[in-house]
Every structure is written in structure tokens, then in C-alpha cells.
């Protein structure tokens, strides 16, 4: 961690995903998962999504159930974008 008291990038990604999920929680379950996936696909840069998959799959972070349900719908970034 490079600066005091703040979140790390990883923590922030998890936090943001959960925050998005919180908004969609009041909607029906399918709509909610779809909404989360759509949002992340539309606004998250590939680097963020790539790291996010690693975090989600590591199981080390607490992601809301809706986020986990949304996972299959989130686009996996192509490996080539970082070239």
C-alpha cells in the first residue's frame, strides 16, 4: 500500500463492485445481476476487469452474491489489450 489510511486498488475494486450491487439490490434478482454485469462491462477498463476476475476467483474478498451471479455475464478482457 503506497499511501496511509486509504484503500488499496484491490480493496477499491471490490468495494466498487459491491457498491454497484447495492444499487441493483432493490430490483428483481435477474435484473440485478444483469444490471451489475452491464455496468461493469460499460465502465470498467480491461485492466480493472482482469484484476477483478482474479480477485473474485481467489475467494479472498467478500463480494456480494449479486456480484458473483453477475460474474458469468462480465466480459473477460482479451489478453492482447495490454500490448
Amino acid at each position, binding site marked *: 500500500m*503506497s*499511501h*496511509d489510511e*486509504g*484503500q488499496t486498488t484491490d480493496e477499491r475494486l471490490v468495494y466498487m463492485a459491491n457498491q454497484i450491487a447495492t444499487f441493483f439490490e432493490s430490483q428483481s434478482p435477474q435484473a440485478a445481476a444483469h444490471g451489475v454485469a452491464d455496468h461493469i462491462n460499460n465502465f470498467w477498463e*480491461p485492466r480493472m476487469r482482469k484484476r477483478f476476475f482474479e480477485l473474485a476467483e481467489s475467494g479472498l474478498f467478500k463480494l456480494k452474491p449479486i456480484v458473483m451471479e453477475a460474474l458469468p455475464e462480465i466480459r473477460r478482457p482479451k489478453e492482447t489489450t495490454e*500490448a
Partner: protein
Amino acid sequence: MCMVNEIDYGTPASKSDRMVTLTIDGKVVTVPEGTSIMRAAREAGIEVPKLCANDMMKAYGSCRLCLIEIEGRNGTPASCTTPVAEGIKVATQTDRLGSIRRGVMELYMSDHPADCPACAEGDCDMVEMAAKVGLTENRYGPNGENHVAPLLHGDTNPHFREQDLSNPYFAYDPAKCIVCSLCVRACGEVQGTFALTVEGRGFESRIAASMDDPFLESECVSCGACVQACPTGALREKTVIEKGMPEWSAVTTCAYCGVGCTFKAEMRGEEVVRMVPYKEGQANRGHSCVKGRFAWGYATHKDRILNPMIREKITDPWQEVSWDEAFAYIAKEFRRLQYQYGKGSVGGITSSRCTNEETYLVQKLVRQGFGNNNVDTCARVCHSPTGYGLRMTYGTSAGTQDFDSVEHTDVVLVIGANPTDAHPVFGSRMKKRLREGARLIVIDPRRIDLVRTPHVQADYHLPLRPGTNVAMLTALAHVIVEEGLVDEQFVRERCDWDAFQDWAEFVLQPEHSPEAVEKYTGVPAEQVRAAARLYATGGNAAIYYGLGVTEHSQGSTAVMAIANLAMATGNIGRPGVGVNPLRGQNNVQGSCDMGSFPHELPGYRHIADDATRAVYESLWGVKLDNEPGLRIPNMLDAAVDGSFKGLYVQGEDILQSDPNTKHVAAGLAAMECVVVHDLFLNETANYAHVFLPGSTFLEKDGTFTNAERRINRVRKVMEPKNKYADWEVTQKMAQALGLDWNYQHPSEIMDEIAKTTPTFAGVSFDLLDRVGSVQWPCNEKAPLGTPVMHMDGFVRGKGRFIRTAYVPTDEKVGPRFPLLLTTGRILSQYNVGAQTRRTANMTWHEEDRLEIHPNDAEDRGIRDGDYVKLASRSGETSLRARITDRVAPGVVYTTFHHPDTQANVVTTEYSDWATNCPEYKVTAVQVSPSNGPTEWQRDYNDQAKRSRRIVHAEPAE
């Protein structure tokens, strides 16, 4: 080059559509009913002499110079106060009238300084009127009772008063005042401040500011309306007194706030003499505020950097270099970074202060030149939730009305905005409507001025706890649905009925009732119910909102909640209603329109959309990345993590304007090439490797788009002191990077925007020069633009209701941080203050102060004016306290106009769930007595001082 002259018709235009025909001096004239004879005459080209009339104010009829005769009527009525009537025959020039007018002028002139410098320069109507009425000699002479001479018959003259020079921008000389009361009426009717009155009677009467105070100490807000209205040299701009009268002028747009006032820049050679609001300006209608009218001195301030500079490390002093060296250095560095760390390792930030054309070029540079989408704008930190929220519900990322719309509004709902301070000219227009009887609801933690101001009193002020907007808005919706106040016909016709029913069911849940949410908001339920009823049933209702809505972790949700309310009550799609975001900086709307966000191309089209990309790909000859790029906070994260290395920042000070200063500083410090392009060495420049001097709005052509989607022209009135306008700098940078750009003029950039963006298809500089301004969408369907949107249905088809659950922010008060801090702006300063701090506006606001309620202050042993420490979980700063009951107990408030205060050291990293717009409006803090600047402030100042050292280049031979 010539003067732009405006006709003064003497009295305001009548709005009637019944026409009346009369004869004036033998000419047949047809005008709307209610027009004054003076105005009817002027429209027919006949100028009746006048002193106390002006078409910005209601007629008053005091000078008796404008008398006329009407066939068959007795006497000589004043033409300014006499309305036209069918068939009357008016004479404006007769012997009788001539002799009365000469008599009037003779009296006036006997009490007017013979050597009036304003008369000599043509800035005082007195000599001109005397000539017009044929007054050649004065029988009274200068030795009678007068206001002019300090001494009268060897004694002090009781009527004489010294000049009032207290206001930094204008002088008041009572000796030249004729007490026509135009200034008094301007201050009341146009500005709505009511600082001026006429004191005394007859010969004793004179103009007084507040309780006969010097202007500076009165309630005057220095808008300049009185100076503009004064027909004599009594009220004059100090710059005109110093520099002399202007020789030529051009019409342009203020570069301060999102109102986007139109001004005449009045010039002598290359020097501005004064800025005068332009009556044809469709946003401001001839009015201005202290910033646009007077605070332009920063444009020539000595702190402006005029030569490019570079340095290898941010600890080195700056080295001045030539423009070519600077461009070559940037090109080399950015190529190296992309080679070494990948295509996505660099990006750019566009400015909401630069023109549309300049913004467009920066995003083009990033997408075409860098080959990624890492472009963002500081609109991120203010209004990104507006774009998101309104797009989801209505289908378009912008406000629905024009400013004129307020003239048709019956109920004004202001939430999280402070129009009289942050959008003063629109604030004045709103106050005017409120004085005419429109009702007012204010939802704000703080008792903003609008709640009670002369002749305006809010029907309801709901002082909610910071961070509970969504709870409040959903409770309003609850009442509207529960009490059957929904405009069902509108909803059935215009909106998605299923979505409405889903939403109605949601808001009806008992936990959304005003009674249930009272525990969060702190506002009595009955007040909320009453406000909801007024909004839903009071006629045309319009919502105006600002950063107090968007800068929250639920900013986007709150915008949707606002959109829901307007749809449910049918307050969309006609004049007088709507959803009106009040934008912060001058070109926030424009910078968003121009594709500054990392996920969308100009016109709000997603980067993943193949058809849109294809348009640009064929024009620009490159393949565009179809993935969204990094937002500002993500860029900083990526920098800290080592994958983001280079940034071009045009006209923004992200270190001062973005949340959590320490995080921004850490991100910038981790980059290898930061290019800052600005007027001054701003705070961000402390972390920069290249500094490119910027140009002011006076030095370039272009357009700004204001809060009403209005595209206004900015016109160049002087050569850039730094050599290049900002668009030229970006172009040269692009050329250095090998791009084939050849714009000769910003109009060509606008042509490219129009060609590629359907909502701008009809826009061109030619059109703007012809019609003044247009509001987008402007295309084949709306060749002159679109004042009110969603007239015949929503842009997205059916309006969409969206559930808006209240989620308390994670920033919570507790024993360590028991108070809630919220932030705002004041009239005389602007944003991070880089410009206004470099003008005499400092007279009004030398420092940021912390407002605290008397109870909270007493608990902590704090007295008014004491230095206090303001601490949050992120950091601490110190500033002086102001004790006031404008804020509720438990809430403190400050502005952030001064870098020394660094209020953003205290704000947190929490941000809007949808857009990452930072949560500036809620921070849990503690306040305690202190004796001066904190350690961070001192360290910061040291670092800032060190990093501002410049080694000047040897003058080249």
C-alpha cells in the same frame, strides 16, 4: 473593428400578443399592447430624450425629459410611463415640449460639474441630452445650491459628499448623481439584492447603499447592474476611469460558471477596458455577476507563465525551453512510455474550462494518437451523475429546459444548489420569478441565502442531514403516490407503464414514508408531506439541483429520483417545468458532450458501438479501441500500481479539485511524465515534468456550452500572450506525435464535430454568428436548436422509472468524528480559485472559513474567528471558524477556494457508485481549537515552494 452598439428602447418589451396601431410624429407604428410610447417611438426610429428610463427596468417617470403630446389629450405625459393606445396621434417634437425639456435640462446642468470628465469622454448622458434638447446657456450659473462643489460661498457645502471608492471595481461620485433611481431599480428588479435606496426628499434626496454605508460594506454584491444602468458619470467602472473609454468591442462568453453569460468585451487596442453584459445574450439577458463583469484581471496577471518549461525530476527546478523543445520532449517521453509499459500506460484529462473545440481535440489525441480511451474530465468530480442518471431515465445526458423557462414556473424546487452564490445571474432571474409569486421549496442542509432574501421567502426549507437526499426524494415520491397526486395521464402516455407500477409499489413501501425516514433526514414528516403536495399540485413545477445532489455516494441514484418525481407529476416537456442541473464550471456540459469520458465518443455514444466507432475510424484513419478507458481515480490507482505512467492535463488542477489530495499526490508522483497545460503553475504542476502555458478565453475563438445546452461563441479579442491558443498547443503536440492535423481555425474543428455527431449536425460558427447561440440537439429536425427537450416524448422513447433505494453512506459519524462536513462555494470566488484569487475579488473572501453552529462551537470552546483543526479519517487541515446558525447542530460547512486550506485533504475516497464522482458533500469530522496550520499544510507549502522554482532561459539572440 467597431463598437457593438445596443439600442436602448427605454422600457422593457411587452409580452402581449394583442397589437395596437398608433401614429408617432406622422409615422404609423404597430406594437404589442402595453408597450410604452417611448418604446414604440424607438422601434420606429424616433428617439425621445430620456434620462431615467432603460429597457432593463420598469419605467419610473421622474426626470420629465421624455414628455410628449397626444392629440386631443391635455398636458404633456411622460412617454416612458404612458402606454400606447389604439389610434392615438403622438407628437414628440413641438415647441412647447422643446422649451419644457430645455428648462428641465437647465436645472439639471446647473447642478452638474461643468468639467465632468465622464461627459467629456462620452460616458455620461448629461452633455449629450443638453445638446439634444438644444440647451446652449445656463441662466442659473454654478453658484446656487448644489451637490457639486465642496465649498459654497466660503463654507462647507452641506449637500456635497466625497466620492465612494470603497468597491474595488467601481466608483460612486454623488456630485454627478441626478437621483434618477435607475441604479436602485437595477439593484432591485434585475439583481434582486435591494442594496440601494433613495434617501431624503426633493433636493435633499440621494442614493444610499444599505444604511448609508460605503458600497463595500453594504449588502452590495458588486454585480455591476447599477453601473451599467447609471445614465451619468456617477457610477463608473474604475478601469474606464483609469484607461479611458473603449474603442472597439466584440461579443463573447464568460469563462467562469455554467450560466454562460454573454458579454461585450470592450477594448482599447489589445487591452480590455471593461466587460459589459450583452442584452441579446440568451442566458443572461443583459445581466452579470461580479466574476464575469469585473474579475478578468487574472488574464494579464504577472503569475501567468508564458514560456514552456521542462524538468526531468519533480524535485528539479523548472527550465524554460522553446515550444519546439517542449513538444519534442513530450513526444519522445510518451513514445518511450508506451513502448516500455504498454499502449494503455498514458492518457489525458480534458478541461471544463476550455472550449468545446479544445476538449474535442484532447480526446481525439488520446483515442487517435495514444490508441486508447484513457481520457477523462474533471466533470467527473461534479456532474457525472447527472449524465448517468438522466440518460437512464430520459435517454439524454443533459438538463431539460432553457433558463427562460423559469419565467413560466409556479413552484421552484431547489435541492443541493445555491444559485445566488454559485449561479448568480440565473439566481437573479429565479428570484425575480419568486418575487412575482412563484412558490419555493429548498432542500439543503444549510440555510442558503435563497431561503430568505429581500421579498423572497421559501415556503418550505427542509434542512436534511448531509447524505440523505435519496431518502428525502423517495419520501416525496411516497407522498405523491400515496396521496394520489400522480399525473396518470402523462405517465400512461409518455412513460413505461410497467416500470412505473414497479416503482410505485416500491416507493409505497412503509419504510419510504416521510415518517419512517425522519430518523435519517432529521426533517419533520409533516413538512415533507406539505412540500410534496406543493410540488405535485402547485402548477408548473421545476427542479433545480447542483453539486449537493451529485457529489454523494448515491449521486446518480438521487438524479434518478429527481427524474422520477418530475415524470410522476407530469412536469416534463413544456416551458416552466423540468429537471435542471446547475453546472459548476463554464463548460462542464460541453466537455461531457465532446466525448471526454473514457467510455464514450462525442454525443454520448458508447465506445463499444461499432457504427459510431466506424464513423471516426474512417475519418481519422485508425482502428479505435472498443474497450472503455480509465477514469481519473482509476488512472491514479493504476499509477500507484505501476501500470500508468504518463498524463496530459489540460486546464485542470486535479490535485486541488479531486478528493483525497494525498491519493492524488501519490498517483501523480508515481508517473514518469506529467504534462500540465494551464495559465498558472497550479497545484498539480508541482508534480509535473512539462509545463505548457495556456491561453485565456480572451485569446481564442471557440464555443462553450452552458447548463442549458446552449452553445455560445467565444471570440478572440487579443493575441495569446503565451503565443498559442490551447487548441493550437494540442494540435502541435499531436503533430509532434506524428498525427496529420491541420486545423487552421477552431471553426474547422466544430465542422468536424458537426459532421460526426448527430446532435450537433446543424452547428457551425456561421450559424452561431447569425443567430447568437443554439441549444443542442441542433440538426435537421431542429435547425435552430432545442430550448425544451422531451416535448413530444422522451428521447429514449418511453420515460423509465427506476427504483431508488436509500443506502446510507459508509462515511459515518462516530465518537472520533462526530460532525458532518459539507462543502460549497461562494459568489466572489470560483472553483479552486486560480483565477479569482488573482483579482480584487479577494476583497470579499480572503480565506476559507468553517461554519459551525453556536452549540457545537460552545461545546468545543471555539469562538468566532478562532483557528480550528478540522480532522477526518483521511487527514487534517486548519482554518478559521465562523459561528452561525445557518448550519444545523452536528453539521459544519466550508468552501474550498484556497489551496492553503486544502479542504480536500479531509474529504474521503468514497464516491458515487455509478460514476465515481467523489463524495465531497459528506465527511465525518472532528473540530477542535488549534493555533495555526497543520503539519501537512506546512510540508505541503514547502514542497509547493520548492517545486515552483524556475530557471529562466538566456534570452535568445
